[in-house]
């Protein structure tokens, strides 16, 4: 195969410093790749949509007779069970997406795509954050596609809710994404998706307020109630639930806003992000100690 000679030599041009626009280009490139990859994988889009819809169409329809939900904020009337679990299902989309992208990181780590990312000259924390935001962008697309289908299933939150839910989805997505990122750096066994389902997704999803209100859980099991209260997923669900009705949080008895959900989600995001950056740090990190990406599991 003949190669074509290019006029000027490529070496001996001192690279430019990495200024603001370089960071911007890098960030945009990473997010763009995540979205592009997602759009090219139709099966992934399809299954991301079908999963919550199965819960909505089948599970919720069947359960609606069993479980009555009383009037609790943010709902002002009795709502159908389908309406109640919609925020939980949006959070489930975020959780699945986060775990999938963290799995792809583990997979990347073996195949080397992760290494391609990490030889970029930008700070590693910036690269990981960009990657995280890219995966949240994908989750946002999935969530809106789901909400669109819900609309035709007569789950119609107020119009304003479609806008106010976006920041909640982004924030919750960041939290779950950062968590997944951390998990991906620590646990090798995650390569098996069944393991992720059993040990991460199911426990988080069921021990939360996604399927039933917390006061109901307290009635049946105080212990489970306590578990739900420390589960970050619960706060993600509640944040989305209120945001879907144009609210930041419930009103307390004295009329002030209860911002617990918001604060807890932000707190968990910062914590998991810090842990993930630490784990991927080349000198302190957990990768170095274990033999690193590409090292054969022993």
């Amino acid at each position, binding site marked *: *195969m003949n190669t074509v000679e290019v006029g000027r030599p490529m070496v*001996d041009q001192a690279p430019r410093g990495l200024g603001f626009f*370089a960071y911007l280009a890098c960030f945009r*490139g990473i997010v763009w790749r995540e979205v592009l990859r997602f759009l090219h994988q139709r099966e992934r889009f399809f299954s991301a949509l079908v999963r919550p819809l199965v819960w909505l169409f089948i599970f919720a329809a069947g359960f609606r007779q069993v479980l009555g939900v009383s009037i609790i904020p943010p709902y002002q009337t009795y709502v159908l069970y389908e309406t109640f679990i919609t925020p939980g299902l949006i959070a489930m989309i975020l959780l699945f997406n986060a775990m999938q992208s963290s799995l792809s990181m583990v997979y990347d780590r073996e195949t*080397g795509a992760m290494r391609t990312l990490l030889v970029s000259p930008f700070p590693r924390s910036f690269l990981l954050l960009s990657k995280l935001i890219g995966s949240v962008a994908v989750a946002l697309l999935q969530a809106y596609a789901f909400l669109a289908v819900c609309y035709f299933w007569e789950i119609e939150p107020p119009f304003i809710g479609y806008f106010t839910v976006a920041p909640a989805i982004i924030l919750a997505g960041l939290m779950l994404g950062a968590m997944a990122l951390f998990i991906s750096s620590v646990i090798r066994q995650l390569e098996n998706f069944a393991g992720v389902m059993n040990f991460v997704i199911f426990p988080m999803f069921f021990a939360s307020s996604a399927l039933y209100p917390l006061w109901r859980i307290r009635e049946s099991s105080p212990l489970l109630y306590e578990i739900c209260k420390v589960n970050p997923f619960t706060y993600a669900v509640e944040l989305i639930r209120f945001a879907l009705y144009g609210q930041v949080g419930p009103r307390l008895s004295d009329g002030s806003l209860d911002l617990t959900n918001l604060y807890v989600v932000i707190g968990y995001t910062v914590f998991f992000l810090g842990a993930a950056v630490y784990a991927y740090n080349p000198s302190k990190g957990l990768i170095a100690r274990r*033999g690193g*990406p590409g090292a054969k599991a022993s």
Partner: protein
Amino acid sequence: MSIASTSSETPSPDALVVSNVSHSFGDKRVLDNVSLTVPRGAFSVLLGLNGAGKSTLFALVTRLYDNVTGEIRILGRDVRRTPGAALQRLGVVFQSRTLDSDLSLQQNLLYHAALHGLGRREAKTRAQESLEIVGLSDRAHEKVRNLSGGQARRVEIARSLLHRPGCLLLDEPTVGLDIGSRESVIQIVRELVSRQGLGVLWATHLIDEIAPDDRVIVLHKGQVLFTGHVPELLKAAGTTNARDAFRVLTGTQSEEDAA
């Protein structure tokens, strides 16, 4: 040794200098006081069997994790102290396939250009240039999925050149390629060395990839056993060909790994 001219930095440092680097995983010492130099404009072969420590060395040079001891410099920039400046000057082709098969060649290249902070328009120009170097410019909009193994490898080489590095690392780049593809990959990289003055470190366990005037670094069980040009290698080992020389130096009998 030809040194590329008109460097904008004051001295003209070697493309890659590794000095006194050791690395262990737990109790296992993978690299033992490794020192090596890749001059500019030189094709240097890092020769070692599987498990010799080549991959660990690559992980350290690409700063997957930090070297605890010793020093690694890419065109004079310390990888641990100034990782950004060092990585800006380094191009890497990893052993495993790292292209997105669902995306087009150009999309893959643009992603990588972005990772180096290149703006969109410049990235497109450079992507085209790089693809020309590897002879695939007419397929920029095809999906990577449609490429053969050798072609994908060439795209990875094109990708590693986008940010115009002075030092190029290739980790067993010809593994799994047929003879024709292997030759074209080797030829492309050799031309980069002679025409553009890149310093290349080519890790392999395939002795027949060594040309008579290459620099050879023999890495065995984490130690550098030899550094120098092929004639010196033959002289040091007292043999007439590189294969025998490698066997004498490493004391390995079996030919299957070093075939």
